[in-house]
């Protein structure tokens, strides 16, 4: 996290009036970076994000102060696209995201960023012989503008970061929630957990069918033990998956229909008709194995290999 300090020499042609104050603020932020960082480390925003060590919070505060100094030096106090922010954009985004994860709303984050202004302004005023004089006032105004811009930068970063996060989580959820497991030669299973909506059912169907090809499966087990409710839509999805698997040459078994769900299915008048069902995943596997000529029984007390190995084709 390096911030070039040399830019303070560059002079912007625009904002000629604001420039002296902006340059003064920039110089102040450089000069007092350490104190500002120390004070910010105790502010709600930094304190709650960097819970492990205060040093980390101070370090983050230094970086933000340095970035603000660079922005002020460029004279673009109210420009959220000012290049000076680039150095800390990622960090600010992470901080905002971390606050958002604790359940604080965007307003709250904005207030916490706004609260960083006062500690810095206090230090700034102390720089002047007359803290209420026109020169001091002008600088405090410049700092206020700058801090307002910082708040916008944080909010903007937070919004785009959370959008990305949501999209990524949604994708991960779909993938993570539908692992296809190879239980045996030619037998795959998907233990479904949680609510099945349309999008997820689609993912389940696709990953199960892909697994059938990859594992050359003859039997595919859809275990719905972990599915809280089965309505007609879910039942329809299950039947579609069964039908698609059959078209590919695999037999699909739905297992884990709990008594309550069985009742619902009957009440709703859903006809699972041709769908092969078994009470538990174990029963479904036993069925698949027996169909493949694999016998399951107590292991012979002594002697040769168990039948389970010999029978696999």
């Amino acid at each position, binding site marked *: 996290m390096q911030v070039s300090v040399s830019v303070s020499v560059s002079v912007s042609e625009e904002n000629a009036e604001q420039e002296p104050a902006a340059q003064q603020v920039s110089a102040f932020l450089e000069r007092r970076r350490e104190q500002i960082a120390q004070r910010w480390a105790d502010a709600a925003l930094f304190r709650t994000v960097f819970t492990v060590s205060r040093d980390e919070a101070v370090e983050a505060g230094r970086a933000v102060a340095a970035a603000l100094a660079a922005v002020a030096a460029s004279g673009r106090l109210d420009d959220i696209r000012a290049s000076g922010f680039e150095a800390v954009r990622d960090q600010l985004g992470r901080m905002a995201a971390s606050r958002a994860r604790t359940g604080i709303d965007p307003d709250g984050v904005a207030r916490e960023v706004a609260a960083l202004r006062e500690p810095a302004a206090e230090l700034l005023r102390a720089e002047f012989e007359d803290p209420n004089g026109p020169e001091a006032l002008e600088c405090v105004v410049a700092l206020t503008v700058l801090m307002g811009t910082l708040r916008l930068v944080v909010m903007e970063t937070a919004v785009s970061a959370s959008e990305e996060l949501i999209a990524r989580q949604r994708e991960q959820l779909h993938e993570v929630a539908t692992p296809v497991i190879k239980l045996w030669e030619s037998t795959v299973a998907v233990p479904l957990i949680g609510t099945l909506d349309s999008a997820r059912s689609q993912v389940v*169907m696709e990953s199960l069918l*892909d697994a059938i090809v990859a594992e050359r*499966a*003859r039997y595919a087990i859809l275990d719905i033990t972990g599915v809280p409710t089965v309505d007609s839509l879910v039942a329809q999805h299950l039947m*579609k998956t069964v039908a698609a*698997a059959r*078209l*590919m*040459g695999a037999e699909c078994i739905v297992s884990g229909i709990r008594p309550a769900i069985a009742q619902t299915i009957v009440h709703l008048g859903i006809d699972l008709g041709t769908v092969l069902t078994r009470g538990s995943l174990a029963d479904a596997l036993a069925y698949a194995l027996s169909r493949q000529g694999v016998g399951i029984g107590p292991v012979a007390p002594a002697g040769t290999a168990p039948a389970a190995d010999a029978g696999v084709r």
Partner: protein
Amino acid sequence: MTGAAGIGPAGGHFTVPVLQLGDVLLVTLQGELHDGMAEQLQQDITDRISHTRVTGVVIDISGVEIVDSFLGRVLAEIAAGAGLLAARTVLAGMRPAVAITLVELGLTLPGLRTALDVERAMELLGAASRPGEGSP
């Protein structure tokens, strides 16, 4: 994308390979199949079954990217026609995307035997022709 070669705006021309392996007819569909060609194929297969003594037909569609209701109907009719001539038909190698689409289309081809690939289809026909083993 593979298998779509040979089709131009003017229409491509290629034949569907039909191979006899023992008492099984192996039909390999690939890429684009014009409606007319599908109907011709249906005719050809029925002729072949009646003139030879095959007891099984395996239709390999692993190279087919889409099956619409027309081709679906042709496949079902081939199977039904073969059945009348005492031959069993197995549809082999349907791709997942094709299977999902067919189900969504409402075409589940209930009367058709299916297998994951040609090898499994041959296995199925062999097992079915042996006495004492029931069909699913």
